[in-house]
Every structure is written in C-alpha cells, then in structure tokens.
C-alpha cells in the first residue's frame, strides 16, 4: 500500500524525490550514475494542481512533518481524476 505526499508546485515532488535519493545513498550521486531520484512523482496537468510524491515503502526517510501530512490512496485517486489525464 503506497502513501502519498502532496506538494504545491509542479516540480515539488520531483525535487523532494531527488533529495531523498541522496539521503538514501548517504553520498552524492555519482556523475556516472543514471538513477537520480527515489520515489515516483506525479505532476498535475496545470500549475495549480501541484504534484504528488508516491511512497511505496515505509517512508523512513521522510521528515516528521511530512509523515504527518501523508494522504491516503483515496485522496490521491481523487486528485488524479481532477488533475491528470485518464481514459479507461
């Protein structure tokens, strides 16, 4: 079961994912390495929709403040319907 962290900007989730990758490595990203971020992220179609970080583990690297504002799958699904392209 994934957890979801909302950001107000389109690139907020992506930037945090990159920070968390460095935190996981406990070293700078090698200039040769291709992997640069830890978690999936989903920007909205419009700036006002912000973005979501999708955490598929226990989220140990998140700050306490971030852990307190994690959203549920239902909240994320509703955001996706409103902010990302869908076609079933």
């Amino acid at each position, binding site marked *: 079961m994934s957890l979801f962290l909302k950001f107000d900007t389109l690139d907020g989730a992506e930037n945090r994912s990159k920070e968390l990758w460095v935190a*996981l490595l406990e070293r700078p990203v090698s200039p040769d390495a291709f992997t640069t971020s830890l978690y999936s992220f989903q920007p909205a179609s419009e700036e006002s929709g912000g973005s979501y970080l999708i955490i598929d583990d226990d989220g140990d690297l998140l700050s306490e403040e971030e852990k307190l504002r994690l959203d549920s799958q239902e909240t994320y699904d509703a955001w996706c319907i409103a902010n990302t392209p869908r*076609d079933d």
Partner: protein
Amino acid sequence: MRLGTQQGVGVVTNPYVIPPPLDGQPSCWACFGLRKLRRTYTGNALWVRRTSDNVEVEVGFDSSGEVSMDSPIADVTEFTTSPSSSGDHGGTATLAGFSSSTDVHVVKWLDQSGNDRDVYNTTGAQQPKLISSGSFVTDPLNFDGTDDWFTSASRLDNSNDRQTVLAVVKKDTGTGSMGLVSCMDNWNDGSELNAYLNYWIYRLNGSDLYNTSGGVAQISNTSKELVVASYTPAESSNEQKLRVNGSLILQQNCTENLDVGSKFLAIGKRLSTSTLYEWNGGISEVIIWQEALTSAQLSYVEKNVMDHHNI
C-alpha cells in the same frame, strides 16, 4: 542459469542455438531483449543497479548471446572519461558476482537496433526488476504493476504510418488498463499496444482494435505470449491487425495517420504523463519496426521468437 527457454543447456559450441531473430530481416526502429537480437550488435544488453549499494553497471551477453549470470559486466563509463570513478563492483566480472544475494533493477534497456533509442527510468522505485535476492525473477523483466516503466528520448516518425510492434510478455493477473508499448500524444493520437480488461487492444489514433467477448483476444495470466500489432496502410482492407502466438486474432479496416505529437516511446505504461496504467508482469522482448513486414518476414521472426521462448 540462462534466461529464456534454454535454461540448463549451458554454454554450447555453437554460440546461437537459435539465431538472433533480426538477422536478415528488415531493419527495425528499435529493439530490446535479454538475448542478442542482431548478430552484428556489439553493445551491451542492460544498464542495471543493485540495491545493496546502488552501484550501477552495464551487463553484456554471455558466450551464447544471452543475458545470464555468466554475463560480463562493465563499469558505467558513458558519462565520464574516468572509468575507475564510476563505482566499485568489487572486482566481480560477471552478473552473478555483481548481484551476489541482492536485488538488481534495470536502469536502461539498451536498444540493439543501432539507432540509440534506449529506454530508461531515472527513478529507483520505477525501475523493473531483473534479479531478486541473487536469482533471476520469473519472466524478466518484471514490471510491478504499480509504477515500473521505461521512457525514452525517441518518438515514432509521424511521416511514416507503417508499423509492426512485437512483444514477448507474461502478464500477471489484473483487469485494469496496462500499457505495454506506447507512443501517444493523448488518448486519441499516437499508437499503443496494451491490456484492457485482460484483453489485447491495439489503438492507432483512436482506431481501437479489440474484442472483449469470446475470449479470442484474452490474455493469458499463466503463460508467456508473443503479441504482434501491425498497421499496413498499403493494404486495401484490414490494415490493422493483432496476432498472438503466431496466429491472427483480430483485424479491421483502418485509414488513420499516425500522430504521436511530441511524446516519446514508453514501455510498460500507456501514457507518459500519468502514473496510471503500468504493466503488471514480465516483458522479455520488444521489437518495433516502422515498416510493414511481409508475411514471410513476420512468420520467420515469430517462429524464431516462439522457439526461443518455448511459446
């Protein structure tokens, strides 16, 4: 252990028990596999990351032209002039030594066509799995159905409507929409081959070829399948076709013109702008032509692929 169907055969004198499928066939637009798909291809198969320390290396083919635990590995040097700085893989020269007992994910699936159309993912959580706890996963590459997929920096050429898309997969259970191979600007522009309600669907600019009744296009959740989607605008009817395991299963008239807009090829997802619709299961081989193969050419490739994968 070798991947594919020849497990246990071991290294043989003839390097190719089954020859690469694209030898002597029309040049493809891009192709990805866990075996050599063209004898003249001299590059590696994969760029991988192990989870124990997140070191990345390239993986080559073994002496039989396959990705196996005997595959040689090489430091990633693509972005540096100093190979020794690219990470320490402990002097291990094979994939077995590199992977040890850890998990290994695929960072890049290297294009063997010679056109440099590699597919990749820079996010660790989205990289399909090759090895789990030191052993190959069942039906690699394994896409987790949650967020694993590959993107690319290449898009199909809108000036050429012809296409043939071939994939070897083992889909796991699940009835949602799951992207296999797509290059779509939006839901009605571009091309995609995917699973819908556990049935094959081939969409070309909104011309949907599928049948969710009768079972003819139902996807197996227990066996590997070879699926081929083709569009041959030069034909006078039934230009759009779907074939599974060497047999034609669906066809219909189609006069669409390909329009992928500015979007790029994706493997394992329907639309690159959404985190939805990821593939759940294995994808072992993908070959894309912007050509309409003749019946003889397609039959040859299909037989080769099915022989190799024991389909």
